[in-house]
């Protein structure tokens, strides 16, 4: 059963792969926002992860080390954000923007000599006979380990926020930093940890773009994926499993439009490539128009800086 020469099982499998970068970045940002911090620098952290991961993988020949390098690159950039917003009390929106502008510049600076190189390939996890099951084998059991890691990250964040004491404290910090401070929790330290976690996951997502999705290095390779990840957190109304849904929705649209481009659909290429952004906007509108339900679910202290005056 084919539509325009697109096989459903291949489409779903590539949808899952396409959603990994934004899923990683979005689940990291979800933790950051649940701690009450709005880091708009996801795009910058992703692209730093993309180039750091790419360089590490090319120099060491190991994709695993590459992903670790990507996570380190994203986390390092997020530390700048953490220092500025948590210690120097800088405006979070402006600092996040600065992070993106700086990340785009720095990544293209350090990536200059890596343009046009192929990174070492990331192989699918060998699951033996499972991968041979018709349809399900192609859709579920034939991916590389990062796909499974991203799903594990969603489950882990969900369980952490819902069942662990540390998760409860993190949410408390995000809902009311003054109350959390009064109870003796280290607001700044907890937020810094959340920021670094978010940076590392954004870096992983970026590394997935440059090591698996594309796979090579060009300037501005993430092409707005970080901003879409931010939108997906709002779409998910700050709930982990809905982030997965949002990432798949977006992954599906981007795969579909690429397939339509390849199949030579009558719609001009430019209109197909703008469709993921347009649909993200549409989804944002639908979510926010539901009588402020999405807004009600937002962490109460989101975007506010904490200064212990007493």
């Amino acid at each position, binding site marked *: 059963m084919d539509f325009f020469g697109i096989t459903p099982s291949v489409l779903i499998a590539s949808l899952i792969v396409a959603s990994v970068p934004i899923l990683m970045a979005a689940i990291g940002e979800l933790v950051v926002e649940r701690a009450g911090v709005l880091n708009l620098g996801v795009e910058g952290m992703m692209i730093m992860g993309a180039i750091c991961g790419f360089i590490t993988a090319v120099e060491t020949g190991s994709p695993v080390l590459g992903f670790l390098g990507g996570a380190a690159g994203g986390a390092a950039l997020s530390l*700048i954000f953490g220092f500025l917003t948590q210690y120097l009390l800088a405006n979070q929106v402006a600092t996040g923007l600065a992070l993106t502008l700086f990340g785009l510049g720095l990544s293209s600076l350090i990536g200059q000599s890596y343009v046009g190189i192929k990174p070492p390939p990331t192989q699918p996890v060998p699951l033996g006979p499972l991968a041979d099951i018709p349809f399900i084998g192609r859709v579920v059991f034939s991916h590389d380990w990062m796909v499974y890691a991203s799903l594990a990250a969603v489950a882990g964040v969900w369980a952490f926020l819902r069942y662990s004491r540390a998760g409860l404290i993190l949410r408390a910090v995000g809902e009311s930093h003054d109350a959390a401070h009064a109870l003796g929790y280290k607001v700044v330290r907890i937020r810094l940890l959340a920021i670094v976690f978010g940076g590392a996951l954004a870096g992983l997502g970026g590394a997935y773009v440059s090591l698996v999705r594309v796979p090579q290095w060009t300037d501005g390779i993430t092409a*707005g994926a970080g901003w879409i990840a931010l939108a997906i957190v*709002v779409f998910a109304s700050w709930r982990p499993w809905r982030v997965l849904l949002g990432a798949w929705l977006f992954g599906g649209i981007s795969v579909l439009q690429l397939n339509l481009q390849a199949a030579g659909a009558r719609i001009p290429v430019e209109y197909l490539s703008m469709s993921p952004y347009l649909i993200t906007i549409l989804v944002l509108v639908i979510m926010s128009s539901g009588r402020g339900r999405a807004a009600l679910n937002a962490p109460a202290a989101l975007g506010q800086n904490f200064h212990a005056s007493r």
Partner: protein
Amino acid sequence: MLRLEKRPSPSRAWTIATPVVAVILTMVAGGIMFAMLGKDPVEAIRTIFWDPLFNAQFAAYSRPQLLVKAGPLILIALGLSLGFRAGIWNIGAEGQYIMGAIFGAAAGLAVYPVESRLIFPVMIIAGGLGGFLWAMIPAILKTHFRTNEILVSLLLVYVAQNILSSMALGALRNPEGGGFPGSRNLSQIPAMANTELVAGTGMHWGVVVAFVAVIAAYILLQRHILGFQIKLAGQAPRAARFAGVSPNRLVILCMGISGALAGLAGFFEVSGPAGQISIDFATGYGFTAIIVAFLGRLNPLGILLAGLLMALTYIGGELAQFMLGLPSAAIQAFQGMLLFFLLAVDLLSNYRIRLARKEIA
């Protein structure tokens, strides 16, 4: 142990001093970055900040470029600063800039080859309208559905870039261009060209409009009720609401003004320095203008100076690329660093740093 103590009101002295301190710190950090790239840091900084203006060999070319580059930056940053003051974050100026260029160019090219004095003014209006309409999308979504304007305006940049390439390849492509992408060259059509007004200065209509906008924005913020409402809404949103300031009206006005100014900047660029609608027309002025707005402390006169300084880093960066082989991305990172330092030293205008014994909490 250092402790921060909030000032009752921001320090006036530090408010003026912080941009200067930030620029100096950026020069130091940038120098370290250039040294790591294997360039002489002192020479690199001198090439960027001194040579474009005073080097006998290059100044004749570079000095006019200063106004050419500063014009769009100042125009966009002025609009953005109004919104930023009121807590309305339009960060999609790049998209509004592109749409202004497309609308303006399309209005003129639609009547080609008619020659009339009216064409240029009509194109200016169309350019402003294009940016205005593009900014109205996030504005109306914000007022009607409470959709986050930051994300929508930014995502629309990617949409605008796709529209731009579709225009350069399709509707606006030069029919006599031999199939190459890109529109007719507006700067070579007398009725549509945004020419240099005073030879050798780089002064074009966009720069004139930018200067007028600086004065208008200054009057708006200092003397007009709307300026007062913008400042009030930013500093005390609750008080603003009690005083009868409609948040929705402010969103529409701030987004509309910034969109229209960005659109104008786009039109003046496409009809003058850039010349034509092409795939690579958008060079990031809309994003750099965010830095300009903050560097100018969201103050019209500050933005004027900040725009000139940022234009200098562009020209100096090109010169350093040519003279020292400094990669162009280094300048982008340099500009990003400037915003970091600016936000960091801003602490000093809002807080006092006190020495204190170990805190309990």
